[in-house]
């Protein structure tokens, strides 16, 4: 019985380890914080501070008077106004291997976006999702406002 359990448990532990490893890659940093802003990963939520590291899957939120500015490893720059919620769903930046992907989700609020190397090398790999539509990025700079659902 114990033996039978041991294998699935070992597999689970491996899977957990792999996930934890994947999440350890820094994908960007917080540069500017005004008012209330938080970074949520898995179950924990911390106040966003200038210099804080960003990881894949992080949810960035600003409060009523909050705003936030971040830069990614590929030089993509994003900043958010008040009452905003953004999730970085996919981020791959290994230009030497041609691995490039950036998918962000704006659930609500306002976003100012300046594209980086990923959009330059592989425009089709970049998108910003909103509750009502998807934005494809073929270069440089845009603004999005979404009301959420």
């Amino acid at each position, binding site marked *: 019985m114990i033996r039978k359990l041991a294998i699935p448990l070992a597999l689970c532990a491996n899977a957990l380890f792999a996930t934890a490893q994947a999440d350890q890659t*820094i994908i960007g*940093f917080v540069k500017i914080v005004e008012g209330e802003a938080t970074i949520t990963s898995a179950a924990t939520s911390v106040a966003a501070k200038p210099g804080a590291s960003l990881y894949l899957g992080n949810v960035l939120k600003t409060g009523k008077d909050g705003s936030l500015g971040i830069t990614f490893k590929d030089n993509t720059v994003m900043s958010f106004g008040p009452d905003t919620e953004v999730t970085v769903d996919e981020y791959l930046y290994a230009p*030497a291997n041609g691995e490039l992907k950036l998918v962000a989700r704006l659930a609500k609020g306002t976003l100012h976006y300046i594209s980086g190397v990923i959009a330059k090398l592989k425009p089709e790999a970049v998108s910003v999702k909103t509750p009502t539509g998807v934005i494809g990025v*073929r270069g440089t700079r845009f603004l999005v406002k979404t009301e959420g659902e």
Partner: protein
Amino acid sequence: MMSKNASFKQTRWRALFAASLLPILNACSQSYVVLLADEDGSLGKVSVTNNQGSTVLEKNLEGADLSGSAGQVYAVSQARIQQDFGSALASSPQKPLSYYLYFEGGSTQLTPESAADVPKIIAEIKRRPVPDISVVGHTDTVGDEKLNAALSLQRAEAIATLFTETLPDTDKISIESHGEKNLLIATPDNTDEPKNRRVEVTVR
């Protein structure tokens, strides 16, 4: 108990209130995208796709709705941009800046010109409130590909050490190496090209 008159007044007031608020709500509640020219004047493109179709924005200050009818493109006023996006625009971080440092052939020795550029990069790092940098090493195509991969890493590491005093937090320096795979100037194999013997330093 409320009199009939009072109740009527209240209902009428509510209706008036709702009617006066409706246009304002409509104007503000839109989900939309606006294309902006870059600070240097260059202009990209974005596509906007929803379940009704797809639109491409190609002009500065051109907008399109995310909900409702895709395909309709309109000009967005600076006043509206300021009202909706003033806060997001004000929080935009400084744009990243990249520098190329060049090397003597087959070595981790910077050219004299590039060595003279190092203080400029240090000054830029110090100018930023919470800086991070990436250091990416490259070689030309002279010699073996594997040896070049090793050399480009050595170059990147050598350059990174020039900034550890300014940026002591190791998390804030990322080191990459592309060997001869990512040439600045396309050349055949075994070509001595000074422009390809480089480390790219990006300050964010």
